[in-house]
């Protein structure tokens, strides 16, 4: 189920502005890869190119190649809609559908794939909520609106919604930045559990979080304002945080800038 991603010489643009340049890396399956770097370095932009969400913004486009195992995500015959069904995403702020119940939120993606039976939906909703460590908290109020949950619960609901369609990859764009420390811990535990089944990529501003949850870490940086962001280095997480190759990485993780 989990799949490897290979990125080769990727550029991403907003109109004529080049946001990231020349990114080449391999993201391993069944592991957590963290993207760190100062604000504006393009790590979120890069994350959004991995499920073709980048091009949703008017004028945004991508050059380069991304292979999900043997499939070219930017091939001319590829439908971005089907890419997004294989590569799930969790956003910075929890965004459950406010008009839907907890149950319907989790089932939302399933229903996109066509009509499914009620019992089938019930099974998937239950297992997804269990996988998201949320089942015990919501099992008695599945028909209540998802927006009534706390922020941390909403974010786990969004994770349940993303994994309900059994994607191969799960992208997380600063999933804890709007949450309190206890909810953050709950999400981090969940990430460690989910990596057994999924390829997980997480963007984070929190370096302790990157150190805690990830197996591999990629550091992004930009030369200056208006310059495109670039991949500085990528390595095993302990190596990046104890003995980085590049001076810029060391300066960043020791808090000298960013």
């Amino acid at each position, binding site marked *: 189920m989990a799949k490897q991603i290979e990125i080769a010489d990727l550029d991403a643009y907003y109109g004529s502005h080049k946001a990231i340049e020349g990114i080449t890396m391999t993201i391993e399956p069944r592991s957590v890869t963290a993207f760190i770097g100062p604000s504006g370095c393009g790590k979120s932009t890069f994350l959004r190119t991995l*499920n073709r*969400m980048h091009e*949703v913004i*008017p004028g945004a486009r991508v050059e380069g190649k991304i292979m999900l195992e043997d499939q070219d995500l930017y091939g001319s015959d590829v439908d971005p*809609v*089907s890419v*997004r*069904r294989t590569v*799930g*995403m969790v*956003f910075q*702020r929890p*965004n*459950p*559908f*406010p*008009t*839907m119940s907890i149950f319907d939120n989790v089932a*939302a*993606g399933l229903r*996109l*794939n066509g009509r499914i039976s009620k019992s089938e939906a019930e099974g998937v909703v239950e297992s997804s909520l269990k996988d998201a460590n949320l089942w015990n908290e919501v099992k008695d109020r599945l028909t209540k*609106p998802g*927006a*009534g949950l706390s922020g941390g619960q909403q974010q786990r609901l*969004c994770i349940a*919604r*993303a994994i309900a*369609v059994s994607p191969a990859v799960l992208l997380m764009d600063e999933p804890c930045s709007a949450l309190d420390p206890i909810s953050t811990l709950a999400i981090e535990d969940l990430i460690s559990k989910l990596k057994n089944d999924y390829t997980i990529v997480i963007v984070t501003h929190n370096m302790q979080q990157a150190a805690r949850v990830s197996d591999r870490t990629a550091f992004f940086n930009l030369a200056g304002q208006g310059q495109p962001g670039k991949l500085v280095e990528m390595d095993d997480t302990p190596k990046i945080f104890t003995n980085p190759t590049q001076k810029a990485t060391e300066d960043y993780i020791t808090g000298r800038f960013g």
Partner: protein
Amino acid sequence: MGRSAFRRSRGEGPFRFATTGAGILLLAIMAAIAVFLIVKAVPALQANTSHFLTEKIWTPNATKPVFGIAALAFGTVISSFLALIMALPVAIGVALFISHYAPRRLAGVLGYVIDLLAAVPSVVYGLWGVIFLIPFMKGPSTFLNTYFGWIPLFAGDAVYGKSILTGSIVLAIMILPIIAAISREVFLQAPTMLEEASLALGATRWEMIRMAVLPFGRPGVISAAMLGLGRAMGETIAVALIFPATFTITFQVLSANGNSIAANIANGFGEATPIGQGALIASGLVLFVITLVVNMAARLIISRRKEYSRAAA
């Protein structure tokens, strides 16, 4: 010690006085209008020799006045709802096209045209209805009557261009821009984070609209529809030119029967006796009540799902 450090700031008094005064003035004017209308209507209602709420005939100028609101109220409601049924789907489609499908430049131009259409005076639509639509509708009406006559709405022995249906079509065209313009504004405000949530799940654009945009815009669209319905009910000059102006209750919208409260006031006020004027004023009060009920019903629909409408808190 001098004056308190927490004293009221000096600008507060006059400003408070001005805003409170404006609020009271508005209420006073409303009350004055209501009192005036009721005072004018009561003598006519007392002179009426029939029951005002159930009588269909409208002859308040006769020496023995007979008049009732039944046929007029019925015509007002049916023509307005027909107009709403025709206008609403088209307006939502136009609004969605502008907000989520059209290229940005085309959307700008279209939005401008819609705003322009909303500003066209109603008499222009009325004249267009008289000169073009009444003769034109003879054909389509005959078609509807021949092939869809089994639907009560299109039944009847004879078909006319000057009918409730023609009036409803003109009303639909009139209220379409206002519904479309408000719906577009509402749809544009659908939160990006919800749209992205559905796209990231693998929704197509239409599925995204169904999951994130329409539920979010629902209260706004209902408000827009009610505004359109209110405008259709109150519309005077365009329908005064088109409605057949008879006092009958029939669902056969292709026949030469039907009228509305506002059209009847416009057509009858000039030659009315004092009693006749009072009768027309009474009919205006009924129109006011109908509009009020429609608005309250809309509010009820919107508030019923309040628990769910805390959009993206």
